[in-house]
């Protein structure tokens, strides 16, 4: 089924993606989403009754990792380069302790 978005949904999706769309660009973004939704609605046209979801088949069963711990030696160097570090913590703008 072909779907579309309006300005409001466009902005909601941009918010969910944590990307700002300037007011003058909203229409363009909306058109762009609608182009994709319109073109890709094709995937609904093929009768896939009884078809399972895609997944990769593999020749050999993937192995699982043994439960062994290992320290990461580059930890401190990594933290030094982090954009917002505070002592040993990563720092973000204040959020309410709730949620």
């Amino acid at each position, binding site marked *: 089924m072909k779907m579309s978005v309006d300005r409001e949904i466009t902005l909601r999706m941009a918010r969910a993606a944590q*990307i700002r769309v300037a007011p003058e660009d909203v229409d363009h973004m909306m058109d762009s*989403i609608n182009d*994709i939704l319109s073109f890709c*609605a094709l995937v609904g046209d093929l009768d896939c009754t009884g078809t399972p979801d895609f997944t*990769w088949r*593999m020749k050999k069963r*993937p192995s699982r990792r043994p439960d062994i711990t290992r320290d990461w030696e580059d930890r401190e160097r990594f933290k030094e380069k982090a954009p917002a570090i505070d002592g040993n913590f990563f720092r973000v703008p204040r959020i309410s302790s709730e949620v």
Partner: protein
Amino acid sequence: MEIYELTAREVADGIKAKKFSAEDVTRTCLARLSSLEGYLNACITVAEDSAVAKAREIDSRLARGDEIGPLAGVPYIAKDNFCSKGVRTTCSSKILENWTPTYDASAISYMNGAGAVLMAKSNLDEFAMGSSTENSIIGPTKNPRDLRRVPGGSSGGSAAAVAAGYCPIALGSDTGGSVRQPAAFCGIQGMKPSYGEVSRYGVVAYASSLDQVSPLARSVEDLAIAMEVLARPDPNDTTCDAYDRPKFSDSLSLRDLKGKRIGVFAGFGAEEIDADLYGALTSAAEHCRSAGAEIEPIDLPIAVKYGVATYYVTALADASSQLACYDGIRYGAHTDGQTLADMYSNTRTVSFGEEVRRRIILGTALLTEGYYQNYYGPALKVRTKMVKEFDDLFERFDAYLLPTSPSMPYMLGMKEEDPTRMYLGDVFTVPISLGGLPGINISMGLTGEGLPLSVQLVGQRYDDARLLGIASVIERLAGRPGIANPNLPQNAEKRRG
């Protein structure tokens, strides 16, 4: 013949035979790079010092009589979405502009372990999203066969570098054609292996279920050598199959195609495919026939009709999720904000390019409740059907031929505005990715104007070695591509020196 014109095997043999040193090779290739880079803009970072140091190390090991690897002293370039320890890895994005990984991608480790010398990190469309290598923090890469044209993408930097003779071999990543199409546009060989054949560990993801590490070279033999180095089980990537690979170079002993059945795509007429490329497809089929193969026309109705839509739904959705980790907290660019939401959106809006932002929002839309049920959900089933279509076909065929791109490399800046037409550029490459099949772009020479022609050879999943064998037979008949000697503008200003 100049050293930079040699293939990887010729370079490796020459070094082993002490015809020239590894340092000679690396310095020659670096010189070739610096003489053309101002025009091509194929590299984001050139690791000159570490490359020379590595080449010297190879030389001293050789002098000591130590065991050296199959690619010892062979310079290579990796697309800048391969993590390289101590070498900046930008993904051509502002958000990773100053990011230096603390680890090597498995593919990089394997190449380095085989003695290859990492010379540079090549240009790409930001986060591999694009097919022209124009959408980059360092600006567009030019096609060395014609500087006015795009090199294809997103691995356009790697393809241009190999075509121009910076290095005999390069690494790219192919999600929906990102190695095969630039290989076609630049007139070289490029192979997307089967999904699960090569580890993706350390390759910054665009779409997990599609991305494959893919070598580019000027000979099928070099592709096979690269595959022998790259394709192996990796405990760091569980989607990389743990099975025992055949010896890829053994397949090169194939002398003819007797007893092989090869399908030739006949689903599109000459009017939908560029006439020269249609001609290349026909002559590739002729080569196969002359080598003893049975040729039959084939159609791929599901793949051709639904492939691009399925691909876009899959890749965009995955991209939106893959790029969510760039939140300005642990690494990468960061732009402050009063609130958490401000910080997130400031960081991501400022530091992702326009096309990436657009694709992230599109992908987010496709995964949103309601939209998912009408897009992502069905796409997962269509993809299963497409795999079935390929499976059925391979019951009758050993391989098939189709175009890599329906069109010739286009002019720089010629952005396709009509989305439906734009998507058609991917029509022959994305179904192969969706099916996880190996696909090789094979050069079919040049047009009268010097523009590259090519064809795509596709095999059954995990049949990579045999496919390389068939490709080598076609290459023998069609001729191996030479390097491009760009027609440098006399008075043009170099972008950089």
